[in-house]
């Protein structure tokens, strides 16, 4: 559903908004149960800041340790390199069937279409991802990929692709159908691809968090595990997981922890573990004074759940891999042209900043992107001469008072049916206030004279 589509359908908007507000509320309840919650956020922010300040060192330490554990570490500068590396590993091992658990990074790199073009069957195993895969849509939320779909839509989809009875829309039965179908895929798979929630520099380990157990089935059965990670996913020490695992699920869904928090140190005996470390433009954030803190993101989705704009427009309306507040900061870094307007799709209410478990100053970075867009003259940043004129006029109190007087007079003389028509975007759904005859400064001046 595009923004216009979703917002045009008032019932859908209400439903989508309510669903996501419920997730935000669950986060509130869960976080309130931890007295040291705000301390955890501060610790997480500090740990990430420390790690980012020494990222090259920690990356090298991680590679060393992971190699000691028997993993093969690959480095990809960009999406293309990532896809080539993953494909090469699969080719070398004559892989035909791949199962993949949730990885926004692989979404970002366009891995699925790349592999499918090369005759490799890749099945997304997270239920939400499986649903959107069957629907041939991108996920609309990074944690709840199919939040934009009603169970009737999903029932239709499963009827077509999985042979469930027409009209079946019971969540339990639909999930059971998916369980049976995906179980076959797990057992048949030649390789499993996962994302990485956290990579530990000190031990060379990877942590993958799921509720469904799909990452675990996908790596416990096939002989090859390929783990794809953005290079910012590092933590220095294993013990730092105690901070992040306490924050992640509570922020994301209000659960105390995901059902499975799997710690991989090297491959299974006699099997393979490949780790692909990906840059893909993150270096630009790394060296940016304004936006480097965006690299702290642990992809919990809390900012999306709390964002009044996201709730009412849905993830697809951003046309970006990652939607919502964090997406509107990361996407212009990927493509400043295509995503120039995203930072403006916000009222800058600041709710996102207050829920972010790693205390990214999200709403401030959105404003900083607007400055950048003005500098680059891109999208809404390409301001017209009227804005500059008005700003220039504001420098003089006489011009300001005069300009205000003229504007008010015009508005007072214009008949209401024109003034309050849809000619100007303000007037489409709003009446203008009653325009006063005198400004405050006039009134105050008069009062003082008395």
């Amino acid at each position: 559903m595009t923004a216009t589509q979703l917002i045009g359908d008032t019932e859908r908007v209400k439903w989508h908004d309510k669903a996501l507000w419920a997730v935000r509320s669950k986060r509130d309840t869960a976080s309130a149960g931890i007295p040291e919650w705000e301390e955890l956020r501060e610790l997480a922010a500090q740990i990430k800041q420390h790690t980012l300040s020494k990222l090259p060192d920690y990356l090298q330490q991680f590679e060393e340790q992971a190699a000691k554990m028997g993993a093969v570490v690959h480095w990809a500068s960009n999406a293309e390199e990532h896809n080539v590396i993953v494909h090469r590993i699969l080719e070398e091992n004559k892989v035909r069937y791949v199962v993949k658990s949730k990885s926004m990074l692989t979404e970002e790199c366009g891995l699925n279409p790349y592999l499918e073009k090369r005759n490799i069957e890749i099945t997304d195993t997270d239920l939400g991802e499986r649903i959107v895969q069957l629907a041939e849509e991108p996920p609309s939320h990074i944690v709840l990929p199919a939040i934009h779909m009603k169970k009737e839509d999903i029932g239709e989809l499963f009827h077509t692709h999985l042979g469930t009875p027409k009209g079946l829309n019971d969540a339990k039965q639909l999930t059971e159908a998916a369980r049976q179908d995906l179980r076959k895929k797990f057992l048949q798979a030649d390789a499993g691809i996962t994302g990485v929630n956290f990579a530990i520099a000190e031990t060379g380990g990877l942590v993958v968090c799921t509720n469904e157990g799909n990452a675990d089935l996908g790596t416990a059965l096939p002989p090859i595990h390929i783990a794809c990670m953005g290079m910012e996913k590092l933590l220095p020490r294993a013990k730092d997981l105690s901070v992040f695992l306490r924050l992640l699920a509570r922020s994301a869904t209000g659960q105390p922890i995901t059902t499975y928090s799997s710690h991989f140190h090297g491959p299974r005996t006699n099997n393979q573990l490949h780790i692909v470390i990906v840059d893909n433009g993150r270096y630009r954030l790394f060296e940016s004074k304004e936006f480097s803190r965006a690299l702290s993101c642990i992809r919990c989705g809390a900012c999306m759940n709390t964002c009044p704009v996201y709730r009412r427009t849905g993830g697809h309306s951003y046309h970006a891999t990652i939607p919502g507040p964090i997406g509107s900061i990361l996407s212009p870094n990927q493509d400043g042209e295509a995503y120039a307007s995203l930072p403006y799709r916000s009222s800058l209410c600041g709710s996102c900043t207050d829920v972010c478990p790693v205390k990214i100053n999200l709403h401030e970075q959105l404003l900083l992107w607007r400055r950048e867009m003005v500098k680059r003259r891109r999208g809404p940043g390409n301001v017209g001469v009227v804005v500059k004129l008005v700003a220039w006029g504001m420098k003089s109190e006489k011009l300001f008072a005069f300009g205000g007087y003229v504007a008010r007079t015009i508005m007072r003389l214009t008949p209401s049916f024109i003034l309050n028509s849809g000619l100007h975007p303000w007037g489409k759904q709003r009446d203008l206030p009653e325009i006063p005859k005198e400004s405050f400064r006039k009134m105050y001046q008069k009062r003082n004279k008395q």
Partner: protein
Amino acid sequence: MAANVKVALFLPCYIDQLYPKVGMATVRLLEHYDVSVDFPTEQTCCGQPFSNMGCVDEVKPLAEKFLKVFGEYDYVVCPSGSCTSMVRKHYEEYIEAEPLENLTRKVYELCEFMTDVLKVDHIDKSFPHKVGVHQSCHGLRELRLGQSSEINAPTTSVDKVGSLLSMVKDIELMPLNRADECCGFGGTFAVKEEKISCQMGHDRLNDHEEAGAEIITGADMSCLMHLDGLSRRKKKAFKVMHVAEILAP
């Protein structure tokens, strides 16, 4: 307040031009608590609309003008959370560290001036109405005028807007479903993303309606102008008032 303390009134440009009564109410309110207020007529605009668009070049001369106009006062009081926040939190780009520090120390939003500086503990007014309070975002999350629902530790010792209102006799403050969701004004957002902006505003109005509020109030006229505009177009029964208008004699 001691006679030698110089207090300036800093008025948002749109209150000066479109809501002069709110400005007058602010003056009456402050004078009622023995604050003699100056209105330096050289003031125009804090620059927020331009900052909101990312136009830093346009803001700079306005910020410098602001410092010139208000720099010598002991206190600068403003009936707007977002304009106050603009000066206290967003002037770093435009003003040197030392003069900026001196300036930010004295700029207050109206409600926080009344609770933190004047330490008002009584409001001599009766207002027998059902009132819904809209917690404007900048005031709430940047100035911490109240406790935001997201944060799990006290960010403020008292809800500055709500506590002043609850001192008014006979007033009934109606609890909302979503205590601090954004109204959708957001500056240029109100015009650039008109559909979303209005959807958000309508949802706020519905919340107040369900809560049984007759009057919607808040500390920011921009939010209220947006809510009022939506309400009047739909011919809803609400009256929209700035807190100054409720608190003032």
